[in-house]
Every structure is written in C-alpha cells, then in structure tokens.
C-alpha cells in the first residue's frame, strides 16, 4: 500500500503543530519519523490514523483521495496506529479485546474468530493465551497484542508512536524483529521516535520534523551528527560528570536490605560523595524503584541504616528525610509527581517550605514566573499541570526540586524526552552537583547511564551489584550485566 500525504496543516491555538507537510510512504518500507519533543510527530501520525482531523491537506491511499472520520474508518482502509499508551482494555480478556471492533454478528463467534487470530499469530510467530486478562501482560506484550489486533483487522500500514519508551532492551529487540518481519510480509511500518540509534538500527529511510515542518528526508544508515543537526538546527554539546574523587562523602548506606513486591535484596553498603552522580541500571522492576523509594523514606527497608554526615535517618516519617534535603522524583509524572487540576503556580507553592498560613499570592507568582523562565517551561503560571506536554511536565518536576536539596533521588528523570531536553535537564542537574548535591538516578537508557554517572549500580532480579566506575564499563559490558550475565 502506498500512502501519500499532501500539504497537511494543523494548529492548536497559536501553535502551528503541522505546517504543510508532504510525504510519500512506500509498501514494505520501515520509515523512521525523527524529531524532538513537540516537533509535531504525534500530531501528524494521529491525523494519518484518523484519530484527529487536520485543518487542511489531503491523504491519498494507493492514489485515491480518502477522508477519515475516526481511527475506525482509517483501520477499515488499512491504516492502524499503536499509541504511546496502548489503547486497550486491561480489564477485558485478550480475546474480548481483540474481538472489539467487529461490526457484525449478534453472539460472540468464539471459534471462528479464534481461528482467524491464530492464522495471524502463526505469521508473526507468537501466541497469546486468549482467556487471560490484558492487564496481566507487560507493556511490551501489550504492544505485540495491538500489532496483532491491527493485522487481524487487515491493517497494511502500522504506525508506532514512541514504542520503545517503557520497555526493556530485550523487549525492544523482540519488537524490532517483529517490525522487520512485518516489512518482509509486505506491510508498511512508520516508526516514530526521538532516538537516533533506533532509527539507524531499524530503518532504511527517515524523515526529520522540526517545529512542525519537514526538514529532512534521509537515507540510512548515516552519521548521527548530521541527523542531530537536522533535528535541532544546531549541534548539541554533551556534558561529562564532575570529578568527585576529592570531594567528601556525605551520605552513607550500611547493610541496607530493601524489599520489593517479589524479593528481598542482598545487603548494600555504599557511600555517596558530594556532587557525585550514581546511576541505577537494570530492567524495569528489578528493584531500582524500591531502592530509591527506600532512600527517600517512603518505604521501610528490611534491615540496615542510612546516614547523613554521620546522623542516622529514621524511617517512619518522610518529612524527616525532606527536612534533611533528601528528595524523590517519581517516574510516573501525572500519577505520583504532579497533581491533576492544579496550576503550575500552585505546584510551586506546594513545593515551598510552609512558613505562613495564608498564601502570599504575589510572592508565589514571582517565584513561579522566574522558575518558568529559568527552566524554560512552555506554559504559564495558570496552566494546569496536565495541559503541559510530557517534556514540560518533566521540566516542572525538576524546577520544583527545592534549592536546598542535598540528595536527589530521580526515577527516569528524562523519560520520553529528546536529546536536547535530556541534555538541558542534565545541565540543570550538574549545576546542583556543583553546589554539592548528590544524585541517584534510575534509567532504562544505557547511554544515559554511561554518559552522565560517575558510578553505576546494576540491579538484576533483586540482586544489587557493587558500584562500578562508569569509565570501566561500556554498553556491551553493562548490557550483559543488566541481562544477568557476568555476575560473581
């Protein structure tokens, strides 16, 4: 199937998200769509998949002009999209989830539909237990399920929007193998991402979007530098971590045993220097989150002690941890980090130490205006947290960390952010380090861990390694450790 889009325009208020984009996608191709956060990638894809109407422009499928009213009508023409957050039903069975979307029949046709599904499953070489609930699957499996569903409904073009956010390295490899298989079967794949390495690995051709315009159509593989130049319109500098070998130790953990839902860890002994950045590597759910939450005072350890310059911190009240300058930033931005329905300004008021009963509107307004400028948050004091884009929510979270923080515990601080925003956030974090703060951060991105941390702790199925100096590691070694190889 050949898709041609001509001169697509879409505006949200004053923002011109898509400004005249034209593009042709050929059958059997894996096309990369590259761009920083807010470049208009998702908007364009939603228009193509019928999830959103465009203001102007045309879409041709095999030379025929088409109009979509909904995702459903796009799927009927063979265009299916996998959203960033899979649009499926956690409380339904896999069978019911697949069946939803059929237009005919009164009773549910169990057997004939099962056969249809199995036929497609055979093509893709994976099988689901159809009676299980969708909610029991991992995010990676739910993506596979969505791909399966789109194919069952006759999708010829599959659009994936940032599919590698939130899945493990191993699942990513599975996904890429699956996508290559789809291309072999003659299906067309559009792969949206802000990660250069992924596009280079998977695609033969990529387009680059910047500020709603198509700024590049590049054959791959090619050097990163030229792609970065196209994505940001300028080269991006990367920062190295500070040299902390001479600075003093400020936090110490002795014989700490953490508990997760599934396991207890081995005892950990660790000291953290002023200005040091420690990375926590491992597959999602290997204990990094529990480790950070324990150090933040949010969860009690099974055993062990935590010292701040020689004083032991007591678990039981998170307040005594924050008083000492220990702060935790969760990965689930909207669920744990920010409060829906509250404005940016109110978030800043909440993050300030409570001194008086009444809110000093003027002062808080001033604070919020300066922070918004300093952290270049696209939004105003009065915008609600959920109205901000993902990247800006992350900036807001960072901006809310108080000045007096001495130990920052960050869970995936750059989740879903492009290179420039990532670097920008790390620049801000480095400033904190120079002032003497220490940072512990968890990340699924090995490059980020290797680049920004002084030392790395590896988590694997409840085991926690001794800290490695990141200069002694490379991505192969770290990848093996994360996968459970090379442990003593």
């Amino acid at each position, binding site marked *: 199937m050949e898709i041609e889009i001509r001169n697509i325009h879409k505006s949200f208020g004053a923002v011109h998200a898509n400004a005249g984009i034209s593009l042709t996608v050929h059958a059997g191709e894996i096309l990369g769509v590259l761009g920083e956060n807010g470049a208009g990638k998702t908007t364009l894809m939603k228009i193509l998949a019928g999830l959103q109407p465009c203001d102007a422009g045309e879409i041709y499928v095999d030379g025929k002009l088409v109009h979509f009213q909904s995702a459903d009508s796009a799927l009927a023409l063979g265009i299916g999209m996998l959203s960033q957050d899979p649009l499926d039903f956690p409380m339904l069975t896999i069978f*019911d989830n697949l069946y*939803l979307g059929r237009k005919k029949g009164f009773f*549910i046709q169990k057997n004939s539909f099962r056969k249809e599904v199995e036929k497609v499953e055979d093509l893709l070489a994976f099988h689901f237990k159809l009676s299980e609930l969708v909610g029991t699957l991992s995010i990676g499996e739910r993506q596979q399920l969505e791909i399966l569903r789109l194919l069952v409904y006759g999708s010829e073009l599959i659009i994936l929007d940032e599919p590698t956010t939130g899945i493990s390295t191993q699942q990513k490899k599975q996904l890429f193998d699956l996508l290559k298989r789809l291309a072999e079967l003659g299906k067309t794949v559009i792969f949206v991402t802000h990660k250069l390495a992924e596009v280079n690995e998977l695609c033969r051709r990529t387009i680059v979007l910047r500020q709603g315009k198509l700024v590049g159509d590049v054959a791959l593989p090619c050097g990163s530098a030229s792609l970065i130049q196209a994505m940001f319109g300028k080269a991006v500098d990367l920062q190295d971590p500070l040299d902390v070998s001479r600075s003093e130790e400020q936090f110490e953990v002795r014989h700490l045993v953490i508990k997760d839902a599934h396991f207890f860890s081995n005892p950990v002994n660790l000291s953290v220097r002023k200005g040091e950045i420690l990375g926590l590597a491992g597959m999602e759910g290997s204990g990094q989150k529990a480790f950070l939450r324990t150090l933040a005072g949010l969860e009690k350890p099974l055993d062990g002690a935590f010292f701040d310059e020689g004083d032991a911190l007591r678990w039981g009240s998170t307040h005594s941890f924050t008083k000492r300058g220990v702060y935790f930033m969760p990965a689930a931005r909207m669920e744990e980090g920010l409060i829906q329905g509250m404005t940016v300004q109110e978030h800043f008021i909440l993050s300030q130490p409570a001194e008086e009963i009444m809110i000093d509107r003027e002062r808080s307004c001033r604070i919020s205006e300066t922070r918004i400028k300093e952290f270049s948050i696209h939004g105003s004091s009065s915008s609600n947290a959920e109205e901000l884009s993902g990247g800006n929510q992350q900036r807001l979270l960072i901006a809310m960390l108080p000045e007096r923080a001495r130990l920052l515990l960050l869970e995936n601080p750059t989740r879903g952010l492009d290179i420039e925003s990532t670097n920008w956030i790390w620049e801000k974090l480095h400033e904190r380090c120079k002032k003497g703060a220490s940072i512990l951060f968890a990340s699924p991105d090995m490059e980020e861990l290797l680049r920004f941390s002084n030392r790395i702790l590896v988590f694997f199925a409840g085991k926690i390694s001794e800290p490695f100096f990141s200069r002694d590691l490379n991505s192969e070694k770290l990848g093996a450790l994360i996968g459970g190889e090379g442990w003593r």
Partner: protein
Amino acid sequence: MQSDVLVGLAGVIASAAPIVIAAIGETLTEKSGMLNLSVNGIILLSAMGGFAVSYRTDNLAAGYLAGILIGALIGLILAFCTLTLYQSQVAVGLVLAFLCRDLSYFLGNGFMGLTAPVMHSATLPFLSELPVLGSLFFDQTVMTYLSLLCIPTALVWINHTRYGLVLRSVGERPEAAFARGIDVKKVRYLYTIVGSALVGLAGPIYTLGLKPGWKGSMTGLDGIGWIVLAITIFGGWNSFRVALGAYLFELLRWLGLVYQAQWSGVPSQVLQVAPFPLMILTLVFVNMKNSEWFESLISLLPPPLYRFFSLKGKRNKAAPSSLGIPFRNV
C-alpha cells in the same frame, strides 16, 4: 406446615421481582460507566404514575407502560445532563432522586386510597404441577416470570454477545472504545435509558400487584431504591449475584414477619428494620472474599464448595473502571 413454607418462599420470589428487575436495569446502566443514583425516585414516581394511569384508563398494561416511560424519561434527563451538558452524574442523580420522590407524593395526592386493576398470578399449565418447583416458580404473576427471565438474559447479553462486549468496553475505557469506532455517547445514552426504564417497571409492580394502591408516603416504597443500588454494587455487576442479593433481602424481610408473631417480646420495629443492617452485614461478608484470611478460611471446605465461594481467578467482580467518569469526544 411444609406448604406454608412453600407459599412463603413463593412470596419471597414474587416480592423480590421488582428489586431484581430494577437492580438488573441499574447493572446495565452502570456497566456502561454511568452512575444512576436516581433509582429510588424513579421507583416512587413510576409506582405513583403507573397506578394513576391504570386507574384512569382502567387498563393494567397501560399502567406498566407508564412506569416504563417514566423511568425512560428520567433516564433521558440524567443522560442529557451528564453526557451532553457534562454535569456531575452524582449531583444530577441525587437531585433527581429527591425531586422524583417529592413529586410522586405531590402529584399522587389525588389518587390516594383509590383502587385500580391488580395483576393476578398466571398459573402455567403442567409446569405448576411439578412438586416444590411448581408452586415456587410457576404459580406467579407475569412480572415475576419476567424478573426470572431477566437474570439469564442479562448475563448472556453482557458476556456473550457483541453488543454486551461493546457495553463493557465503554464502561471500562471509553477513550479506547472510541478509538475502536464505538459511539461512546450513544451507547451510554441507550443503556441509561434502557436501565432506567427497567427501574421504572419496578414501581407499578408494587402498586399494581404486590401492594395494590397508592398511599402517599405510607406506601412504604421509600428506601427500596437505595437497597437496589447497594445490591448492584455488592452483586459485583453480575446479574446472577445481583438477583441472589435481591432474594436474600426479601427472605430476611419475610423471616422478620414470621418471627414477629413468635417473639412477642421483641418490638416489631426491630424485626422490620433488621433486614437492612443484616443485608449490609451479609453483603460485607460476601465481599470479604477478596481478603486473604477469608480465602484461607474457606480453603478448609471440600473442593466443590470452596470453588463456589472462592473468587480466585473469577472475573467481573470489579466495578467498571470508568464508572461515574465523564467522557468527551475529541
């Protein structure tokens, strides 16, 4: 003596009929993600309206039809306020509940103490001659048969038809259902109106059958609607369990009446009110199945009994995920 018990139990099945029908109606509505709190008001208003229409026309069927239409109309008002005007389901539902109740007392003033046609039992040939079952189930009114029929129909509709799947999807994750080409608003409108119509049918079953006549606030129907809501929740949005809850409630009420004569020392009010707290306790007990200590307790039972009581691995016990949450199309 034995036949006394049978007659009593047949009475329990008959008097539970309106509760079964109303609770299944509410289950359908809530499965679509809509919370209809006006049940109590609908039952009262349709009880009065159905009686009034039946009195004026001297026609039994017209009375029942009026009840259904009143229910559907209130459902339409609720759906319009919440789905089109985006008002809170809880606020609109509560206002309607009290408005309809007072409206029924006010409009019903002129119909107090009058007599209208009454539905009599329609004995089914052959089937009613079965021992025990015959007198329990097949010597009842048409409405009781309907209530019995509703239980498997709703179960099959929700779990085994494509339309039922659409209904569940809308209640679980409307934004995902929308992406699958389902008109979420239309489905919610439909099930709110249909569910409320079933609730509306419950009213005339009382005033044109079980407790003939309209006696204003003395009719004794105020409060039934809230029990219906509780049964819907505790029954886990499953029509079979919901019906069990309704029968349990009426059984307790009947036992209260029976023992009133024997325990003359106990004030009659205690026995009249007892079913309500007993109901709550039972339902709480039923829902303790979710707890681990209950699982370990019943694991001592023989396997078939254990499987009956255990909720391990069973579905449909959880509330529809988006119950009460408004949905806006893009």
